[in-house]
């Protein structure tokens, strides 16, 4: 339990005039972990990062890096470095000049020593021997690596990354994603990664903090976040989800399991938000967690296939529920395994899921939710 904490935010609030960009945010980032802050644009995630880096000062609350309170410490004195969204490489210098920039500011080292360290850092990110190239002579992926090397060469306590993979095309982003994770594991530096892309956050992070409208919604491991979202927002923002709206809780089966009624069909799910019988409820069900059986079977919900979208390893199947009093539909992700049932449009199927595959929450004002791909 006595894990060392590298970065700590304690009740941090940041206001820009009337606007509250960050609202009472607290979290601890353990040493050597990969921590992501995930949220839609305008959620305040960039402001959180800029406060850790020192480019913004909190209106209230304290920030600690390596146990030291840094609220009043300027960015050039903090033991953290940032990889900028648009990388911000210095075009007036060659690659080596970029990587040695921080070392030269620090001083107390001969030119040869600096260049040796810079070459090592470049080798670590796979750019051995490219030091003499100009910034505009290398590809986007290589520029990412230079930006990483430029920060890592300073051996920071914390490396802050402001969505640097966002500008890359899909293939390169996938490759860099893994590379970044391996690099982090190898070096043991604490990474704080800001992103609106949940696939990146889920794949790379040890811990994810989901932020919305300046507030932390949930801090958890990727798996926890995916399987047991704590709030309505997390359930709708992270991963694909079926969303059944405006049901009613009929009874509680357990402290955290409830039975609900959607258009006359009884359904079960994990009860979030302290749901009580009689409460209005929204239910989220992962499309890959729904069991689909052909024909009419016992113990499930009857539906008719209205659409099949083939997508390589799986198909996304849209099913209209047959016995409901209002139109309801669920998407089911069917993996193309050997056991997968053969289905066709207009087939009648039976759907069922374990209670813990579905998460129920109080409905919220939908206009606030902005779901990004």
């Amino acid at each position: 339990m006595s894990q060392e904490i590298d970065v700590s935010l304690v009740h941090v609030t940041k206001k820009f005039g009337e606007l509250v960009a960050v609202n009472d945010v607290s979290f601890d980032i353990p040493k050597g972990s990969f921590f992501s802050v995930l949220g839609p644009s305008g959620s305040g995630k960039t402001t959180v990062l800029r406060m850790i880096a020192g480019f913004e000062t909190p209106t209230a609350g304290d920030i600690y890096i390596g146990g030291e309170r840094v609220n009043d410490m300027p960015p050039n004195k903090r033991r953290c470095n940032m990889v900028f969204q648009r990388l911000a490489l210095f075009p007036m210098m060659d690659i080596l000049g970029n990587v040695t920039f921080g070392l030269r500011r620090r001083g107390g080292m001969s030119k040869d020593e600096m260049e040796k360290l810079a070459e090592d850092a470049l080798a670590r990110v796979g750019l051995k021997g490219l030091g003499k190239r100009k910034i505009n002579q290398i590809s986007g992926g290589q520029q990412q690596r230079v930006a990483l090397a430029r920060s890592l060469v300073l051996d920071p306590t914390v490396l802050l990354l402001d969505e640097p993979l966002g500008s890359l095309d899909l293939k390169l982003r996938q490759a860099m994603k893994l590379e970044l994770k391996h690099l982090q594991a190898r070096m043991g530096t604490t990474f704080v990664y800001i992103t609106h892309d949940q696939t990146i956050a889920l794949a790379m992070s040890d811990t994810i903090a989901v932020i919305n409208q300046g507030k932390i919604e949930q801090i958890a491991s990727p798996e926890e976040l995916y399987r047991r979202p704590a709030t309505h927002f997390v359930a709708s923002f992270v991963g694909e989800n079926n969303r059944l709206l405006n049901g009613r809780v009929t009874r509680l089966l357990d402290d955290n399991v409830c039975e609900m009624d959607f258009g006359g069909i009884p359904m079960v799910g994990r009860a979030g938000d302290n749901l009580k019988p009689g409460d209005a409820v929204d239910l989220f069900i992962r499309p890959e967690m729904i069991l689909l059986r052909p024909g009419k079977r016992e113990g499930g919900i009857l539906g008719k296939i209205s659409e099949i979208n083939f997508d390589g390893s799986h198909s996304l199947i849209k099913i209209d529920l047959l016995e409901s009093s209002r139109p309801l539909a669920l998407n089911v992700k069917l993996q193309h395994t050997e056991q997968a049932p053969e289905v066709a449009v207009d087939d009648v199927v039976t759907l069922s899921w374990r209670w813990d595959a579905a998460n129920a929450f109080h409905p919220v004002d939908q206009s606030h939710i902005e779901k990004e791909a």
Partner: protein
Amino acid sequence: MWTRIKRNKGMWLLIPMLLWIGMLFVLPHVKLFMLSFMDRRSGAFTLHNYATFFNKSLYTKVFIRTVIFSIITTSLTLAISFPTAFIITKVLGQKFKALVLMAIVLPYWISELIQAFTWMVLFRETGVINYFLQALGITDHGIEFLYHNSTIAVGLIYTSLLFMIIPIMNSLDTLDDSLIEASYDLGGNFWSTMREIIIPHAGPGIMVGSIMVFMLNLGNYVTVTLLGGKNSLWFTEAIYNQFIVRFNQNQGAAFGVILLTFSVLFVWIVLKITKQDLTEAM
């Protein structure tokens, strides 16, 4: 191929400009060049006009004074303009930016001649400044502020500020703010960020501004003669005297060619030394 043809077709649009340059710049300069090698009376070829420049120390001294004075005023203009341009582009918000820019541009809607005359009204012995100094009891007699080197410098700097500020602003505008933040993030401070990031980025703008201002100062006549009077000892005044006062066109032409040749050489050498490319700078 298609774009090539297309491109060539538009070439005739350049004709008016080429006519202007040809008739008002190239032809006169060819004539000037020829005149400078002619004897005043016989019109025969001679190097006498150039010899006069190098033999009479007055002319060489005036020339050197003009060049050094121009270098100093250009440097001072740069020293004032760079922080101004930096604050306008990187510090001020949109609203103040427009306001400050307006304040800088507006005076240029008045001609240089009128500006110089207004300064004479301000600076002369019985002028506005002296009136207030005497009214406040700071001095009991009129002080002549005109006809000093410093007055000439003040005037030259003022008339050329805009030509320094605008190119520097243009180059600073294209500097991504995150580069400045990155410098601080990596441990840089105000001076190292200035030296390593901001000034190198603004280099072409500084170069263009400096070349323009240097040329404007070197070739200035109105501001210099009105504020400096007989003591201004500016090389353009020597040219004016040869043409207008002494009717020695050939001597004046030689001075003109010397000034032009020097200017071109000087700019070329400065560009070489600072490793700037003229096309890039422009």
